[in-house]
C-alpha cells in the first residue's frame, strides 16, 4: 500500500506536516551557526528530540519512504552538530601542555629507552661498517660530501653561504619534521617502519662520524651538532617510540578491536607529536643560527644544547606548567 493511502499514515502526515516544516527550517540553521548560546543549544536539543520522535513514528508508519529518509537525514545533521567539540581555547591549551603531553611522554618512556638503544646500536654498526669498509661510505653520503671531507672540508662549513639563517632554519625544520612524522606514521606497519627509520638514521650518523674521523674531522662534526643535536635526536627517539607504541596497539590490542585500540593510542599520542613539532622548531632555529656559525665556542654550544634539552625534559615531565595545589 502506498504510504498515504494507508488512512492512519495519511492522517498522521497531514497532522504533522506543519511541525516538520518548522523543525526542518530550524534544522537548516543549526550547522551554519559558528557559536551557540545556552538557549540555542537547548533549543537544538529540543528539535533533535522532536525529530527523533517523528523519525521513530515514520519508520513504523512509512518504512522506506522519502519522508523517513528525510527525517533520518535531518536527525543525523542535528546529531553531528550536537556532537561538535568545544572550541580550542586557553583552558584546552593549558590542559594540553600541563596534562596531555606529559601523560603521552610517560606512556612511551620505556619504549623510548629501547629505541635509543636501537639507535646507539645502529650507530655503532654504522661506525664499524665504514671503519672496516671505507668504500661503503658512498651508500650514505653524496659524492660532493665525500669529496669535501677528503679535502678537509665539512659539508656544514658552507651552510651559511648557501642560504640566509632564516631560510636555512625553515629548510632544516621541514626536513626534521618529515623524518619525525615519518618515524611515527610508519609505526603503523606493526612498529617495523619506526624501527627501520631509527636504525637507518643511526647507521647514517655512525657511518658519517666514522668517515669524518678517518679524515680528522669528527670533532668538528660533533662541535656542529652539539647545540641542536641533543633535542633533535631525542625528538626522533620519541617519535620512533610513539610509532612503535602505535604498532604495539595493533599487535597487542588493549580494547575490543584492533581498530579501536589503534584509534585510542593515536589519540593519546597526538599531543606528544605537537610537543615534538614545537621542539623541532626551536631545534631548527638553533641549527640555522648557532650551529654553523664559527662565532660560538664549544662551551656556549654545550650550554645551549644542554639548556634546551633540560627545557624539553621539563615540558615532557609536566614540570614546565605545574598543577595548582589542591586547597591553595
Amino acid at each position: 500500500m502506498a504510504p498515504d493511502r494507508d488512512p492512519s499514515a495519511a492522517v498522521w502526515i497531514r497532522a504533522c506536516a506543519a511541525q516538520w516544516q518548522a523543525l526542518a527550517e530550524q534544522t537548516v540553521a543549526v550547522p551554519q551557526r559558528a557559536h551557540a548560546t545556552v538557549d540555542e543549544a537547548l533549543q537544538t536539543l529540543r528539535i533533535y528530540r522532536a525529530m527523533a520522535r517523528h523519525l521513530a513514528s515514520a519508520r513504523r508508519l512509512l518504512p522506506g519512504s522519502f519522508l523517513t529518509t528525510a527525517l533520518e537525514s535531518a536527525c543525523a545533521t542535528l546529531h553531528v552538530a550536537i556532537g561538535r567539540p568545544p572550541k580550542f581555547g586557553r583552558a584546552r591549551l593549558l590542559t594540553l601542555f600541563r596534562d596531555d603531553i606529559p601523560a603521552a611522554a610517560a606512556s612511551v618512556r620505556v619504549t623510548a629507552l629501547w629505541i635509543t638503544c636501537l639507535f646507539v646500536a645502529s650507530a655503532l654498526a654504522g661506525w664499524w661498517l665504514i671503519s672496516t669498509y671505507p668504500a661503503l661510505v658512498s651508500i650514505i653520503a653524496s659524492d660532493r660530501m665525500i669529496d669535501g671531507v677528503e679535502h678537509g672540508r665539512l659539508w656544514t662549513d658552507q651552510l651559511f653561504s648557501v642560504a640566509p639563517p632564516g631560510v636555512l632554519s625553515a629548510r632544516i625544520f621541514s626536513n626534521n619534521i618529515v623524518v619525525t612524522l615519518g618515524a611515527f606514521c610508519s609505526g603503523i606497519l606493526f612498529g617495523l617502519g619506526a624501527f627501520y627509520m631509527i636504525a637507518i638514521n643511526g647507521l647514517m650518523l655512525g657511518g658519517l662520524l666514522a668517515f669524518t674521523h678517518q679524515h680528522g674531522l669528527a670533532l668538528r662534526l660533533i662541535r656542529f651538532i652539539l647545540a641542536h643535536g641533543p633535542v633533535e635526536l631525542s625528538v626522533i627517539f620519541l617519535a620512533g617510540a610513539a610509532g612503535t607504541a602505535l604498532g604495539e596497539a595493533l599487535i597487542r590490542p588493549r580494547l575490543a578491536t584492533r581498530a579501536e585500540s589503534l584509534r585510542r593510542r593515536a589519540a593519546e599520542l597526538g599531543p606528544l607529536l605537537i610537543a615534538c613539532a614545537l621542539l623541532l622548531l626551536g631545534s631548527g632555529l638553533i641549527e640555522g643560527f648557532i650551529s654553523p656559525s664559527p662565532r660560538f665556542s664549544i662551551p656556549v654550544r654545550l650550554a645551549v644544547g644542554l639548556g634546551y634539552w633540560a627545557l624539553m625534559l621539563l615540558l615532557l615531565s609536566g614540570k614546565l606548567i605545574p598543577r595548582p595545589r589542591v586547597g591553595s
Partner: protein
Amino acid sequence: MADEELIVRGLTGVDMALRIAGPGTRSFAFLIDWQIRLLAALALVLLAVLLRLLPNALRPLTHGVAIAAFVLAPLIYFLYHPVLEVLMRGRTPGKRRAGARIVTVEGATPTAGSLLMRNLFRLIDSMPGFYMVGLGCCLFTRQRVRLGDLVAGTVLVLDEADTSRRLARLGEAMQRSALPLETLRLIQDLLDRWHDLQEAQRSRLARALLAKLDPGYDSQSDAALSGDGLRARLEHLLGAGSRP
C-alpha cells in the same frame, strides 16, 4: 563487503544512518581541492617571480613581499587540508562541492586533534604516488576509509544538509495541497532540478506530470505554454503559487 551506511546510535535511542562516501566522491573532492591549492600556490610563486622582474629601483619595496609569497606558496599547498578541515569542521571547498564531510565513527564533528592526525597520515596514504595506499585501503575497508581515517577514527560521509531544506518545503506543500506525499515529492524533485535539466527534458517531464495531475491542463490548448508557465503550474499544484 563495504558498508553503505554508518549506523549511529542516537542520543534518544533512535538509531540513524549516515551514507558513506565512496572512493569516487573522495577522489572528486580531492581533485577539486588539489586544483585550488595548486592554483593558489602557483599564483603566489608567479607573483614572487614578477616582483623579482621589476626594475632594481623598486626592489627594496618589493623584496619582502616576494620572500613572503615564496614562503606562503608551499605553506598553502601543504597546510590546505589540515587548516581548512579544522576551520570548516570536517569540510573543505572540494568536499563541500562533492557533497561530503568528515564525521567521527560515532557520527559527531571530529576534534581538531583527530583532523590533524587524519592529515598526518597522508604521508603514508600518498605513497608510493597518486594516493595508491590510501585508495587501496579505501577499496578494501568496510567503511571505505584510508589509513588516516582508520587511525583518527573518522569516516567520510555524504553531507545531506540539503535534505532538511527539502523536508521544510515538502512540509509546507503537504499543508497546502491535497495531493499524495509521493506525488508532491515528485513535483518538488522536478522543481529542484529545473535549472539543471535541459529545456526539452524538463518541459516533457512537466507536461507528463500536469497531464496526470492537473484537471485544468489540456495538452493541446496548453501546447504553447512556455517553460516559466509550466513551472508556475507545477508550483500551483504544490500550493505554493497562484494559478497562472
